[in-house]
């Protein structure tokens, strides 16, 4: 009963109009185009991300009016020239307003390549206001800073947290929960105890201990 729902193709299929348009407007921006199970992912230079988002939103043939989300991915050393990618999930939402049809019902994934030594990406909040919370989450979880974000601070972890937990080299494990009777801790102004536990590579031990 196993049935293929969507074919696995590589870039040999017909190029999507989004790729053509981006290539025309930003000749050297596209690093890679990948198609998997019908979804197209375009890897672009991070410097051009705001321009590309503006193009996708404002071009009437594309009309990517709906900001679905953006997320971070830590590829660690599996990619040759960058470690992180910020994936923008954009959707052209079909609707009819005042008798006029809008939207194409298409979806595109734009990826910005982010190197480890300079994790900064221009913020797209000016184009899509909804990017505000997701960008804060990526900053919180991956330590990727968004230049031009109006209010870039941690969103899920507490403000005095050390490190960025979704990074692959950040250890997973139990937190040392202590009840110190208000002698130290965030409320008293001391540095909180970092996590200890297992890292992605099965390393166990004290995270703080790796300092030395």
């Amino acid at each position, binding site marked *: 009963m196993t049935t*293929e*729902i*969507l074919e696995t193709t590589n870039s040999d299929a017909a190029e999507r109009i989004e790729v053509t348009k981006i290539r025309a407007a930003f000749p050297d921006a596209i690093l890679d185009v990948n198609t998997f199970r019908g979804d197209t992912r375009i890897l672009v230079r991070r410097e051009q991300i705001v321009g590309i988002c503006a193009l996708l939103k404002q071009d009437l043939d594309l009309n990517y009016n709906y900001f679905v*989300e953006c997320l971070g991915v830590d590829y660690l050393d599996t990619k040759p020239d960058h470690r992180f990618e910020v994936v923008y999930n954009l959707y052209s*939402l079909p609707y009819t307003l005042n008798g006029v049809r809008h939207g194409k019902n298409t979806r595109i994934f734009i990826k910005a390549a982010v190197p480890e030594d300079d994790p900064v990406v221009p913020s797209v909040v000016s184009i899509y*206001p909804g990017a505000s919370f997701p960008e804060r*989450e990526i900053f919180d979880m991956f330590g990727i800073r968004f230049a031009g974000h109006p209010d870039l601070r*941690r969103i899920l972890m507490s403000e005095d947290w050390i490190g960025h*937990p979704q990074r692959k080299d950040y250890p997973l494990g139990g937190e040392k929960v202590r009840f110190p009777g208000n002698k130290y801790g965030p409320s008293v102004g001391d540095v909180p105890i970092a996590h200890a536990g297992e890292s992605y590579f099965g390393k166990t031990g004290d995270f703080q201990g790796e300092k030395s």
Partner: protein
Amino acid sequence: MANIEIERLIEQSSAATAAQGIQIDALDAQTMVVNMGPQHPSTHGVLRIVLELDGEVIVRATPHMGYVHTGIEKELEYQTYLKGVTLTDRMDYVSALINNAAYTLSIEKLLGIEPPPRGQCLRVMLMEMQRIASHLVWLGTHLLDIGAMTVFFYAFVQREKLLDMVEMMSGVRMMPSWIVPGGLRGDAPEGWFERGKDFCDGFPRAIDEIEALLNANPIFRERTQGVGILPAEECFGLGVGGPTLRAAGISYDIRKAIPYSGYENYSFEIPTGQYSDVYDRYRVRMAEMLQSREIIKQCIENMPDGPINVDDRKIVPPPRIEMDNSMEAVIHHFKLWTEGFHPPVGESYVPLESPKGEIGFYIVSDGSNRPWRAHQRPPCFMNLQALSRMCEGRLIADVVAVIGSIDIILGEIDR
């Protein structure tokens, strides 16, 4: 290397600390800052909202979240695909089956499989039951927040019937983890569809009773009409979806626009509002519940026979009876529950219509038995961004009505 890394982390962390907090001029007598939550009963969990007030009028509302952050996305990277399903229940805990389905459909897209018709139909039925249950929780708590207690009991009577059905099938009321890659964990028990029919027969009357209490109720209308208006154009950029978007007059539903699990085979309407206020969101959700009931009825009437799972022992465990007779079955069972399956290298995302908006899991597979990265597109998290915009210029009491109207679940916002 490690030293530099940690120093950099600390530096970034302290920069973030400096940015934390509300920047206000202490000498400015015009505005006042009031903290709402995180233990405020109307914040649906542990949400803290910092309100900047001019008299009793809200200048700015800043939500602070993360109090129930449990690192589910990090944990998913360490669990095999099958085990990860149980974690997704805990995200949006009032619509657990839809979270299961979102994670499962994304994995199935990676694997390139699709369950047989009966599995699809049961999934649709379970998801619609969960949608009604989620809307009933919203209805009860929203009305409780703005001062009407009776509706809570009326809504929960109906919800109990649905949870009883889920319990009958899975043994669990709220965290069933019943939709898994390849199909479902089990078929419907005897008498289950009759229970479903009974529910469908009695449900419109229950909705009528609730609507008779509220629709023309002057106190309710005073509290909700014209409150929390968000124009449709602003919804798009903010990523606001679901009933909040439909209340703005946009006839858009993922079940119609991008059908999944065979939703194209069912006939149902997309209810829309007109004024995009709290009252319209209430009307849209009430109408949606009746539409979900229509879908459940169609599922029961047209339930196909046959298997519920894909016939692939590498993805779905063998039936118990086979394990007594077949060595192969025992080996498959052992391998599946210890090692799991290996999807091909790739990335997938499948959008679903959750009771709150668009939900979907972005899964990055590196070809191993665990996801390299699994990220949920959290509808409540995105909808919460609109809170400040909806509250600006309104009174404090309206904040409570607005929070209720966007139907936030903090388990999903914080994950």
